[in-house]
């Protein structure tokens, strides 16, 4: 159908128009992030979500509601209260995730750089950004685990199960074996990859051999892994920590921790670099290797790929294996970077948020990084927002949901801002493609 003409990925390779090829990797990578109309729609969707979130916030806040009650006696007051509430929450969100002017001011009051660093004023300035990166790390990795299969025409709902698989292996290697520094971290990270990859492989193999649809198998595996995890953590001879009464594993040893990038007071760790490296690696894989060419061919037109001599089944297995590994890395990054032990809720909502991140990131590695950072920032800023303004943390979920809703329905945004329709279907395709892929 012609509505796929402008869909994501021929553009990544097709961009170097002037032939010379001198723009090289950087240019093409940038192009994979921004793409004409789509970028506009994403920006407007995010903006609109903030407006809607602000309105929701303003009209559910008790002070504001009270002010509305006195609307006719003091109309200005009501509007001002609504504005203050809505904007106040976003200011706190910003201060909690990007930079807080108070910490910057405090930094500049210090006598010398030496004392500023020593007393932690410098790290206080970068603390919000560090938190954003920490929150973004698993989102990016799990987002890639959804985005890569998407490029090959598969819809991976199972980032959660693969992430749990990675967590289990990484945690076990983290406390169960004793290895030298560096080696231990690396072994655990690889273990995380393998743990996730095993589950991804299973899904691919089932699809290739029996035709079982990956959406069904991944959803079911999510439940299986969730209860398997609880089971592992319920028995001391399995993974429950000695003397613990609740389902929690022993803590991993210090050698298995992912090293901090900027000292102990900032939680940002090597996991973030792994996430960025994986995104770059995925871009390279998709656009510069024969395997990626096969993945993309199969994603766009499996029958033509088959005629061209590609083995569709083998690629399904391979792509799910890599995707599972990425989700597994995401789990390893959580355990080795921030949590250090495994409990029955460690997987959080990363696996599900990953789908959102991949959608928002347009199924492309660069986009996934940006989307992961955005959602990471929302997560990082939410606690401060709640503490300072009383706006519930769930506001972040509302923002995420509205962003996705608007992006899944580009005509909505176009109608709102009177944009002309671009040539093709657009981002919503990511949403609607899954089942019939």
């Amino acid at each position, binding site marked *: 159908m*012609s509505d*796929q*003409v402008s*869909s994501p*990925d*021929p553009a990544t*390779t*097709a*961009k*170097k*128009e002037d*032939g010379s*090829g001198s723009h090289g990797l950087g240019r093409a990578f940038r192009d994979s992030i921004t793409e004409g109309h789509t970028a506009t729609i994403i920006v407007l969707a995010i903006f609109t979500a903030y407006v809607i979130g602000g309105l929701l916030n303003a009209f559910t806040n008790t002070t504001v509601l009270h002010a509305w009650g006195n609307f006719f006696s003091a109309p200005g007051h009501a509007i001002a209260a609504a504005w203050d509430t809505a904007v106040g929450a976003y200011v706190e969100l910003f201060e909690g995730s990007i930079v807080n002017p108070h910490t910057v001011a405090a930094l500049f009051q210090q006598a010398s750089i030496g004392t500023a660093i020593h007393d932690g004023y410098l790290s206080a300035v970068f603390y919000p950004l560090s938190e954003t990166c920490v929150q973004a790390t698993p989102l990016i990795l799990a987002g890639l685990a959804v985005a890569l299969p998407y490029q090959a025409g598969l819809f991976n709902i199972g980032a959660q199960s693969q992430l749990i698989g990675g967590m289990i292996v990484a945690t076990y290697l983290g406390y169960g074996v004793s290895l030298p520094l560096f080696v231990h971290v690396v072994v655990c990270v690889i273990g995380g990859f393998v743990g996730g990859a095993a589950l991804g492989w299973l899904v691919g193999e089932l699809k290739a051999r029996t035709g079982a649809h990956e959406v069904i198998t991944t959803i079911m595996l999510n439940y299986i892994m969730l209860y398997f995890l609880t089971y592992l953590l319920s028995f001391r001879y399995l993974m429950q920590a000695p003397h613990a009464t609740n389902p929690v594993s022993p803590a991993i040893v210090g050698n298995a921790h992912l090293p901090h990038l900027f000292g102990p007071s900032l939680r940002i760790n090597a996991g973030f670099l792994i996430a960025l490296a994986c995104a770059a690696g995925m871009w390279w894989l998709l*656009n*510069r*290797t*024969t*395997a*990626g*060419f*096969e993945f*993309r*061919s199969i994603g*766009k*037109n499996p*029958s*033509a*790929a*088959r*005629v*061209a*001599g*590609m*083995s569709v089944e083998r690629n399904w297995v391979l792509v799910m294996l890599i995707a599972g590994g990425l989700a597994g890395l995401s789990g390893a990054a959580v355990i080795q970077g921030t949590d250090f032990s495994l409990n029955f809720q460690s997987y959080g909502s990363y696996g599900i948020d990953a789908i959102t991140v991949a959608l928002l990131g347009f199924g492309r590695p660069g986009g996934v990084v940006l989307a992961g950072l955005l959602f990471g920032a929302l997560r990082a800023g939410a606690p401060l927002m709640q503490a300072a303004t009383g706006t519930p943390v769930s506001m972040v979920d509302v923002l995420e949901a509205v962003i996705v809703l608007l992006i899944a329905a580009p005509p909505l945004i176009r109608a709102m801002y009177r944009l002309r329709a671009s040539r093709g279907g657009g981002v919503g395709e990511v949403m609607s493609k899954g089942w019939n892929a």
Partner: protein
Amino acid sequence: MELELKGITKRFGSLVANDRIDLSVTPGQVHALLGENGAGKTTLMNVLYGLLQPDEGEILLDGKAVRFHSPKDAIAAGIGMVHQHFMLVPVFTVAENVTLGIEETRRAGLLDRRKMRKDVRELSHRYGLEVDPDALVEGLPVGIQQRVEIVKALVREATVLILDEPTAVLTPAETDELFRIIRQLKHGGKSIVFISHKLKEVQAIADTITVLRRGEVAGERPPSATEGELASLMVGRNVQLRVSKTAAKPGDVVLDVSDMTVTDEAGRVWVNRISFRVRAGEILGVAGVQGNGQTELCEALMGLRPTAAGLVTLNGRDLTHARPARRLAAGLAYVPEDRREDGLISEFSVADNMVLDQYNRPPFASGINLNLGAIAANAAERVQEFDVRTTSTQTPVGTLSGGNQQKVILARELGHEHKVLVASQPTRGLDVGSIEFVHRRIVEQRDRGVAVLIVSAELDEIYALADRIAVMYEGRITGFRPPTVPTEELGRLMAGATDQDPGASAPPGPGPAPSTGTATPGAGQ
């Protein structure tokens, strides 16, 4: 009702799809609109049907200017359209499909099924369109589905019927049947607009022919105009309708297929113990009505379907159960029947499509790395060589016209080392200019010593290309003939008649007798 289009102009951006087109359709006449793909035929009809609004010009009905804002207005004015792709609900019956949207109800909002059926039966009878109102559409052959579409238009009291490429999906027999219906409609006082790019059909059915070229009226001709004249009007230059070729000089047997049987998952036999050989430097044309196993034969030859029994060898190498990749590597080149579905990835660039089955071989790859430079260079060279009309080699191939898409496939398949070329319906849906080009390339391959197997439902194509003709019917080869065989005899073989005397089946063609003998006993069972 007299319908007239005056000075219709339609622009899409800088592209002028229709440039001041005048056209008048008189009742009781078949007016053919002839033009290459992209000449603006469909745009013009969409304007007439209310799907597009003209930028300039007007539509006159009995001398009165009208504006159609949507197909609804057009239908109300008595214009009916049968689209190239049918707009039917497969799980509904014929009667339900016909009355969909204009259902009549009895009291309490119940559908008046009896009247529905009666209307359909009556109308189809009047115009000789035999359709069973109670049949489910999904179970009907394409030709009958098309009749349902025509009945649909007639029920809505259409006086002008637009048929958009109506024969593209039909077998020769179904086409004849359609022509009979068109004549009957004509005698019933309807006017018909017949859109096509096939010269022969237009000449056979039209009363007036308007030729479109690049959005303009290139000329109006009576059906008595010669094929050559119409073709040059369409293309804008003189075209060769039949490629000239010298006698074949067949060499050794390259592709040897013996007792091949192909079945589908359900166990249905599509290809039944077929045997044939193709020699280097000859073209074997497989004729037959679509759906008699030709598609399955090609797919099995390429390893896209399992071969249930038999033996396939290429230069003596057994390929019976090889994967597609191994067959390609062994020297098979393949032009699939459905180029959009099997031959190309529409979203990929021209350059990527040109290496679709070569991407993992040098010079396009070293190890696992793609060599983008080599891919681009290859594309630039092939676009030149095959005269692919595209703005750049990075354009998505889906935006190219059908003819240019086919050129991309040919460029790719002929570009790599190959000993056998299997081409299925190589010119389906292409315009005269592209057909000439494709045919010339295929003959060129033969002359270079490639063994060529052509499968086509168009007898003209078979006659134009083949050095030897094999006819397929219900999965069997009913006979081999030289290209000098009369059409009637091929028609007889296509309808299932077999050679009574196996001895007589040895073709007096240029090549030595192939293994016809083995096909005949199978066909006789």
